[in-house]
């Protein structure tokens, strides 16, 4: 079992991985990412009140981190599914991905939700459109957990029948919320694992509103120019191969064509739901199916997500050929045709 610790090194902190050697002794810790100045807009983040991931990201992506704190708060404390079901989904995803930090956060939220009013019999309160509290059966909760796991490990293999079970149990709005909650957990756990699990320090509480931590314009550190980043002189070529069958590329092209005529699993949201959206979300929802379903049925979760993405794009200024080549690699890995 490896332990991950955030330790103070002089005035700097370093995320470190410490693990047992073959002889049972702790190996030397290996630094992943250092934390020297975890501040946003002049406010220094505090490990007692701010999450560990925010401490790592703040100095590198301050506006993104600010948007992420808002997004995290929404998913964990104001999720339209109710906070218990939201925590159950994040726990199912984190366990599927082997993300201990994500699982620990979800368990903390789950305990809090159980203490603060959700019944401890397995039933989950949900709010009907009329505002009355209804009861969601344990079987439905288990169905949601299973769906979240499937969405995590083999999303492209989910068949129409599996989807219909969720849709019939929850309806359109809540199904879209389940999908976005599971997608958020997939995002967050991969980020945690890429940073080198950071659970040993930082607050486990829901982040406070980041109002007091508004990044100054242009606060993100300047990135090196892409020409130098992508220079052939940089780094060593990995021996890694993804193990894809090269013969399948032609098959992919024909499957992309089929995806164009495929019928989606969920009906388009009512026109008035799109009309209510502010620009540019309304125009995007009219043009892009992903946005129509997401913004039409769950405008708040989707808007917070897009706000986070916008901040990241502005701060990272990724080269578009590079970033979309990486996007292609990931969609290929996931078997996602859309």
């Amino acid at each position, binding site marked *: 079992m490896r332990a991950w610790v955030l330790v103070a090194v002089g005035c700097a902190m370093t995320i470190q991985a410490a693990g047992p050697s073959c002889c049972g002794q702790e190996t030397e810790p290996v630094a992943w*990412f250092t934390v020297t100045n975890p501040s946003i807009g002049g406010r220094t983040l505090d490990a007692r009140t701010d999450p560990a991931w925010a401490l790592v*990201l703040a100095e590198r992506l301050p506006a993104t981190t600010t948007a992420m704190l808002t997004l995290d708060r929404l998913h964990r404390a104001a999720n339209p599914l109710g906070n218990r079901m939201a925590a159950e989904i994040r726990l199912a995803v984190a366990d599927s991905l082997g993300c201990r930090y994500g699982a620990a956060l979800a368990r903390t939220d789950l305990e809090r939700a159980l203490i603060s009013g959700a019944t401890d019999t397995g039933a989950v309160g949900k709010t009907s459109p009329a505002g009355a509290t209804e009861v969601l059966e344990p079987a439905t909760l288990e169905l949601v957990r299973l769906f979240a796991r499937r969405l995590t490990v083999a999303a492209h293999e989910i068949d129409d029948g599996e989807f219909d079970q969720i849709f019939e149990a929850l309806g359109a709005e809540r199904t879209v919320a389940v999908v976005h909650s599971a997608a958020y957990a997939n*995002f967050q756990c991969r980020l945690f*694992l890429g940073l080198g699990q950071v659970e040993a320090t930082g607050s486990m509480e829901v982040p406070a509103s980041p109002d007091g931590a508004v990044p100054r314009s242009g606060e993100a550190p300047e990135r090196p120019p892409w020409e130098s980043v992508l220079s052939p002189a940089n*780094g060593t070529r990995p021996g890694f191969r*993804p193990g894809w069958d090269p013969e399948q590329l032609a098959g992919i092209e024909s499957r992309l064509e089929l995806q164009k005529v495929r019928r989606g699993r969920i009906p388009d949201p009512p026109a008035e739901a799109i009309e209510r959206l502010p620009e540019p979300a309304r125009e995007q929802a009219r043009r892009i199916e992903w946005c129509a379903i997401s913004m039409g049925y769950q405008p708040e979760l989707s808007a917070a997500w897009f706000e986070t993405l916008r901040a990241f794009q502005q701060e*990272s200024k990724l080269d578009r050929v590079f970033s979309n080549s990486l996007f292609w690699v990931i969609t290929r890995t996931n078997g996602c045709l859309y």
Partner: protein
Amino acid sequence: MGHSEMLLAVAGLDENEIQERTSDLSSGDWSGFSPSEAQAFEVGCRLTRTPPDVDAATIARLKTSLGDLRAIDVIWHTAWCNYMTRVADAFQLPLERENVFAAPDQRP
């Protein structure tokens, strides 16, 4: 995959260049790309497929190739892609026929 190809077109690649690039990517032989691109693709692939197996050594190589800031950017972008694909796959969204990311004056 359809959207990433549309976005490559918006980034300035023509149809042949997109086909060539996706063919090179799909081959799994990334020797035609720079070492730092190949490192990023490796991390993207592994953080997607088997995230707990991405270890300190892998991230250290990524940092050596791209630098600390760009390494974080690659991890973040990879995580983002995994959000987007979960939504698209759950709903099996039909792929739009035209490039939905093209500038308004370039759409049909």
